[in-house]
C-alpha cells in the first residue's frame, strides 16, 4: 500500500475498492509518526522500578526492614509532593507516569539506612519540589532530581547522612576494626596512613560484589545493581555506552594511578576492582548517569559525559574530602550537558562544511 506517500484523490489499483465495491473517496493524511510503539514514559519508568527491585531486596537483606520503610516513605513523599504541586499549579501533567516513584526509590537508595524516615521524606520532597517541578517537571529538569535530593540532605544533615551501619551479617570479613565505615572510607584511610595490605582487600572483593558491606541503602550489592542494569540494557531503556565508559574510566584511572608504584602486582590489580565495586559507582552508572532527561542525547556526547563522570569520580575519591564522589560527579556533569550536546551535534547527512 502506498497510502502515506501518495495523497492523491484517485485510488490506486491495489486499493480495496474493487473487493467489496465501496468507493473510497479520500485518503487520510496524518502527521508523523506513523509507526507507533507501545513504549511510553510510564512504561519506561515502570521497567526502571522493576530493575531497581533486586537492589531494594539486597538493601532489605543487608540492612533490615528499616531499608524498606525508608524506601516506602521516600516514594510516598515524592508522589505526594508531585501531586500537590500539580494540583496547586493546576497543571495537566500526568501523575501516573511512575517518574516520581523512580525518584523516590533513588533518593532512598542514596541515603544511609540509619537515616530517620522524615529526613528521607524531606530529601524526596526537595528532589521533586525544587529540582524537578520548579524547572517545569519531567523532561525539563537540568539536574538529576534524586541526586539533588541527596546533595540537599548532605548539606542539611551531614552527620546523619554519613552515619553508616554495618550489615546484618557483620562487618567486612578480613579487615579488623571496621564496623561502620564504608569500604571506600576504609580504603582511603588505609592508603593515607600506609597500612594498606592488598590481601585484606582481596578478601573483601566478594563481599563487595554481593553487597555485604556498609554504605548507602541501595549501593551495597553490585550483583543486584548489575542484574537491574542488564535488564534495562536488554529492554534498551539505557544506552550501554554510559555505564560502560563511566565504570571503565574509573577502572582505568584507578589502575594507572593506583598509588602502589607498580601496575602488575597483585595489589595493583585489586585496587581498580575495589574501586569499581565499592561505593555507589554501579548505582550511579546504571541508574543515575543514564537518566534520559539529564544526560546528553548525542551518541558522542554520551561518551564525553560518562568519561567526565568517571574522571570526576576518581578525582573526588582520590584527592577530595569525601570518600565517595559518584553523586557529585554526576551532578556536575549534568550541568555540562547543554555544552556537550552543542559541541557533539552529529553531522547532518550530506552537509558540507562552510567554506568562507
Amino acid at each position, binding site marked *: 500500500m502506498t497510502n502515506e506517500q501518495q495523497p492523491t484523490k484517485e485510488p490506486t489499483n491495489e486499493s480495496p475498492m474493487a473487493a467489496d465495491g465501496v468507493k473510497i473517496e479520500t485518503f487520510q493524511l496524518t502527521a508523523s509518526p506513523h509507526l507507533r510503539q507501545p513504549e511510553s514514559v510510564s512504561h519506561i519508568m515502570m521497567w526502571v522500578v522493576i530493575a531497581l527491585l533486586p537492589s531494594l531486596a539486597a538493601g532489605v537483606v543487608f540492612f533490615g526492614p528499616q531499608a524498606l520503610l525508608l524506601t516506602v516513605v521516600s516514594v510516598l513523599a515524592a508522589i505526594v509532593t508531585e501531586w500537590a504541586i500539580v494540583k496547586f499549579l493546576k497543571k495537566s501533567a500526568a501523575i501516573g507516569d511512575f517518574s516520581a516513584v523512580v525518584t523516590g526509590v533513588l533518593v532512598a537508595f542514596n541515603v544511609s539506612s540509619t537515616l530517620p524516615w522524615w529526613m528521607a521524606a*524531606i530529601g524526596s520532597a526537595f528532589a521533586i519540589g*525544587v529540582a524537578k517541578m520548579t524547572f517545569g517537571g519531567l523532561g525539563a529538569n537540568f539536574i538529576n532530581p534524586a541526586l539533588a535530593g541527596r546533595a*540537599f540532605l548532605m*548539606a*542539611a*544533615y*551531614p552527620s*546523619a547522612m554519613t552515619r553508616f551501619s554495618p550489615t546484618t551479617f557483620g562487618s567486612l570479613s578480613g579487615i579488623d576494626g571496621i564496623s561502620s565505615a564504608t569500604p571506600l572510607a576504609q580504603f582511603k584511610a588505609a592508603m593515607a596512613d600506609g597500612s594498606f595490605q592488598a590481601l585484606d582487600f582481596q578478601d573483601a572483593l566478594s563481599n563487595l560484589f554481593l553487597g555485604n558491606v556498609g554504605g548507602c541503602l541501595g549501593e551495597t550489592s553490585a550483583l543486584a545493581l548489575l542484574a537491574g542494569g542488564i535488564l534495562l540494557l536488554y529492554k534498551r531503556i539505557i544506552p550501554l555506552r554510559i555505564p560502560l565508559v563511566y565504570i571503565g574510566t574509573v577502572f582505568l584511572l584507578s589502575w594507572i594511578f593506583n598509588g602502589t608504584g607498580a601496575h602488575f602486582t597483585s595489589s595493583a590489580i585489586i585496587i581498580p576492582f575495589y574501586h569499581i565495586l565499592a561505593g555507589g559507582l554501579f548505582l550511579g552508572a546504571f541508574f543515575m548517569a543514564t537518566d534520559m532527561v539529564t544526560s546528553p542525547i548525542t551518541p558522542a556526547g554520551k561518551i564525553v559525559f560518562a568519561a567526565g563522570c568517571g574522571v570526576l569520580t576518581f578525582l573526588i575519591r582520590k584527592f577530595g574530602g569525601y570518600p565517595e564522589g559518584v553523586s557529585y560527579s554526576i551532578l556536575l556533569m549534568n550541568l555540562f550537558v547543554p555544552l556537550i550536546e552543542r559541541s557533539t551535534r552529529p553531522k547532518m547527512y550530506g552537509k558540507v562544511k562552510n567554506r568562507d
Partner: protein
Amino acid sequence: MMIGQEIKRGIIDENPILVLALGLCPSLAVSTSVQNGFGMGMAATFVLTCSNVIISLLRKVIPDKVRIPCFIVIIAMFVTIVQLVLKAYLPALDKQLGIFVPLIVVNCIILGRAEAYASRNNVFKSLIDGLVMGVGFTFALCILSVIREILGSNKLLGFKFVPGFQPMTVFILAPGGFFTIAFVMGVVRYIGNRKRGVRR
C-alpha cells in the same frame, strides 16, 4: 501623594529585594537570623533616607558627569556614622554583621534610589521614598531571616522553636539563602499576578 500608597509601593509593588532584585548580596549574607536581618534593615533604612534627602537637596549642584562619585561620598558618610554608632552602642550586632555594614556603601538599593529617584525629585518626596524603600528592604529581610532561622537553626529570635526538630544546616548557608529568596520571590509574584488578574 498618598502615604499609604507609597508604603504599599515600597513593601510590595517595588520591594527592593523581592521585586527589583537589588541588594541580594547583603540579603543572602545577613538574613541568617532575625536579629541580623532587622539590624541590617534598620541600618540601610537610615542610610537610604538620609542620603536620599542630601542628594535631593544637592541635585541641582552636582554636575551630571560626576554624579556617581558624589553619591558614593554622601552615602559613605552616613555609613560611617552608622558604623561608629553600632560599634559604640551595639557591639554584638556590629560583630555579627561584620563587613556588611561598610558594604552598605555599595548597596545597589541605595545607589539605585539615589540615581533613579532622589536626583530627580524634591526633598520631601525623596525622604518618603527613602523611608518606604528602607521599610520594604527591612520587611523582606525579616521574612527571609524568619524562614532561614526557623529551618536552619530551629530558633526564632534566639529562642528554641520546635522541640525535637533537627535543623537543616543548609538553610543558614548560602544555598539555603538562594532557595529561600527564590521561593519568597515566586510567592510574591504569584500573589501579585493573581491580584492583577494576569493569567499565565
